[in-house]
């Protein structure tokens, strides 16, 4: 295999507070969620937020990792203005999770290790009125927990790497340990083409950019090799504007982190029993649930996968399927997702309840709302969840009664004498035309079988 791509993903596990202090995560106003510990003041000490560890542990279990009974934190020393202590507390010799895997598009991607660590502060580059470049430091992010998820160089294409990231985030979101709205995810990408040494591209901040960075590196490294040059082992940065990478440091100037165990923190221990308690409370893994949905509800693989995009959606589907036809429900939940996507909304934030959807499906099943009417009804229902029948009534989407339809049939017959003559002459197409006319007059609310029956009855006379 000539092309090798590996990832180091940084994913922020969902927590209320930071990894080593009680400051809130994701605060907006700069430098408001800070304390002596996350500012690295002399004398302040870290103490582990066990909630962050629990969230990280759930992710590790969902990725089928082995959990060693003891892991240790380490100091990774380097000087950078975003680093409050000029060292980062991370894990080095013994991370908390190892040897996992994630299946993406039927390919098993091994996970080498997951380590728990703190995020540095964030930097904002700015320029003053008199043209001086300067940097503003926001320590709100300093000390935010991160899981660093490391894969071996197993991806055969930039696309595979992106798909892994998407699947990883979907899984983390599904098991409730990633806040897809406020949480952060970024990656370092290792790339090497045949005959070129490994190059690491640092801090790529979107899935699309991971793919772009890898694509650029492949082209760059291939041209280095084509020129007959040896290529250099180095760390490069990615410029999202231009889609290119540039040298940060070469092997000779590679950072020396001098890791030692963090002496202010006791080793992180966990018993098998504690792991089992957390494992038992984990939701059914998505891939297993997809297989069960296909079998139990006789829906397609595609529908099942789509329902699994959000756990709340899959949960509600199962709830609704207790009282409604599951296949019908799956079909209409697909339309619900279309509406959500159109409005850039997440299902779990829409407020759509199982009761709303069950009532909606009853209207569809009883032909009280047509397919077209159903689509119109859902567009409104998803955005403003409320009882479906009264909304259909309000929107005038409820089907007409037989008597109301009869009046429209009479009108259609009066308005189209030629068609009536054609039907009588045995032209089937003319009958279809008349059906269409009645439906049009009803603005979609007439039931097709009512129209057909009434037309036939009228024309037979």
């Amino acid at each position, binding site marked *: 295999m000539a092309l090798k791509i590996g990832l180091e993903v940084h994913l922020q596990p969902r927590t209320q507070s930071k990894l080593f202090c009680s400051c809130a995560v994701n605060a907006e106003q700069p430098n408001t969620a800070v304390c*002596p510990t996350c*500012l*690295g*003041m*002399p*004398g*302040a*000490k*870290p*103490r*582990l937020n066990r909630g962050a560890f629990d969230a990280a542990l759930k992710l590790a279990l969902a990725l089928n990792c082995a959990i060693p009974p003891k892991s240790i934190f380490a*100091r990774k*020393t380097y*000087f*950078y*203005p975003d680093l*409050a*202590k*000029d*060292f980062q507390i991370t894990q080095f010799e013994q991370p908390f999770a190892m040897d996992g895997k994630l299946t993406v598009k039927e390919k098993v991607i091994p996970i080498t290790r997951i380590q728990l660590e703190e995020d540095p502060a964030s930097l904002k580059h700015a320029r003053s009125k008199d043209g*001086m470049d300067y940097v503003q430091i926001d320590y709100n992010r300093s000390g935010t927990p991160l899981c660093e998820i490391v894969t071996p160089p197993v991806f055969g294409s930039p696309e595979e790497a992106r798909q892994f990231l998407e699947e990883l985030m979907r899984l983390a979101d599904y098991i409730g340990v990633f806040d897809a709205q406020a949480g952060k995810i970024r990656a370092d990408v290792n790339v090497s083409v045949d005959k070129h040494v490994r190059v690491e591209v640092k801090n790529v901040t979107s899935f699309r950019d991971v793919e772009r960075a890898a694509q650029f590196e492949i082209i760059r490294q291939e041209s280095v090799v084509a020129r007959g040059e040896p290529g250099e082992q180095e760390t490069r940065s990615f410029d999202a504007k231009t889609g290119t990478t540039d040298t940060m440091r070469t092997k000779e100037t590679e950072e*020396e982190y*001098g*890791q*030692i165990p963090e*002496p*202010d*923190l*006791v080793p992180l221990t966990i018993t098998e029993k504690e792991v089992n308690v957390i494992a038992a409370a984990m939701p059914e893994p998505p891939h297993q649930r997809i297989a069960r949905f296909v079998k139990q509800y006789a829906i397609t693989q595609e529908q099942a996968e789509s329902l699994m995009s959000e756990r709340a959606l899959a949960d509600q589907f199962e709830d609704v399927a207790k009282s409604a036809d599951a296949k019908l429900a799956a079909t209409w939940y697909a339309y619900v997702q279309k509406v959500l996507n159109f409005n850039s909304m997440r299902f779990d934030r829409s407020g759509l309840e199982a009761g709303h959807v069950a009532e909606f499906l009853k209207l569809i099943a009883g032909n009280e709302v047509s397919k077209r009417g159903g689509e119109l009804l859902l567009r409104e229902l998803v955005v403003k969840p409320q009882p479906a029948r009264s909304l259909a009534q309000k929107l005038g989407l409820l089907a007409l009664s037989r008597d109301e339809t009869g009046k429209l049939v009479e009108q259609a017959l009066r308005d189209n004498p030629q068609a009536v003559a054609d039907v009588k002459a045995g032209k089937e197409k003319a009958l279809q035309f008349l059906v269409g006319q009645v439906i049009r007059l009803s603005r979609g609310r007439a039931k097709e079988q009512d129209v057909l029956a009434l037309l036939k009855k009228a024309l037979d006379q």
Partner: protein
Amino acid sequence: MSTADIVQEAQELNKKFSFFITLADPKDGIPVAVKDNICTQGIQTTAGSKILQGYVPPFDATVISRLKAKGYSVLGKTAMDEFGFGTFSANTSVIPKNPHDPKRCCGGSSGGSAGYIAASKHARFALAQSTGGSISAPAAFCGVVGFTPTYGRVSRYGLVDYANSLDKIGVIAKTVRDAAEAMGIIAGKDEHDETCQGEPFTIPAKLAKKLTIGVPKEWLAQKIDPEVRKQFDAALEQCKKLGWTVKDVSIPSTDYALSAYYVIALAEASTNLAKYCGLRYGATIQLEGGGDYTAFFSKVRGEFFGQEAKRRILLGTYVRMAGYRDKYYGQALKVRQLLLNDFAKAFRGCDIIAAPTMPIIAPTFDDIAKLSPLEEYAMDTLTVPANLAGLPHLSVPCGRAKGMPVGLHFIAPQGKDELLVQAGEAYGA
């Protein structure tokens, strides 16, 4: 005596002996002298370093809040070697003088606290801190009591770190009873320090049994001033008169302990000192003509760190670099474990280990100037083993040599801090 009396006396003593870096002038409470590496809200805390000049902590160390809750106040911040890097309190700009002979040092690094307790008529105890002997050494040189608890018995929250796996806050006191009373206030579990899991300290009843004292033969084989040795031998005779048994014990890893200590302590110190870069607090500079972050922090650190701090950063960084880490740092951790095993074995045959606290009496400043860094490090040979093993130890005065005080060192098994108090009081300190 009143608060004002204590403050006034401290001001007068300070003019003569330079015990304090900062005097706080409290208006009420019982004023207590505090080593300058313990954070005090609203009072400058520099750990004896120019790089923290002007730094006023926004919070109190746990030991300070516990003292304040019992009616104490902060008298001032006592002189010390920069970040605790020294044995004589001479590696700094405010150098305290020994009240028994101002040409001599107080010892270090808690020199200001020890000198002040020796000279004051009012004070009963001061807060001090030890990494490798920084409570015992100045206590011995100044002829006062130095109590260093088991590692983790007293919270380090608010202590400016030297080497976190070795640092212990303790007390320097007039008497063993005074030290015990202070320990009763400051010791015990603290949620702000994960490594502080120890029990609160209970002042023990009088010693009821006859002790067996172990004397490590490897320690007496070190280079010890004969006059100091004479006082130590006399102290052992005193112990025998109390009905105690004195016997030889062995700590075979002694010869490696000093090197292992310095490797571990400096490895940790070099990471702790990384944060002092002029960006967030303490001393800073304006870069002439601009420049990047590296140019900025290099200038700040170059200008404000003392010679010994720079030496320890370089050594400490070296021993944890890839390629050297296993050879030095990893090896030192193994020696630490060996030493723990040696102590465990020795304590199977005795209750308490005894030795001279320091191999010499307080040296003169002229003598100190002639010492190489390695010779200064070697002064810690007798205090380092207990510190590296995290064991509680007590230095009590035991006679004089050449007119200067000599210290007797008692070391107890882990967590047996109260036994030390019983032994010290029975000995008559």
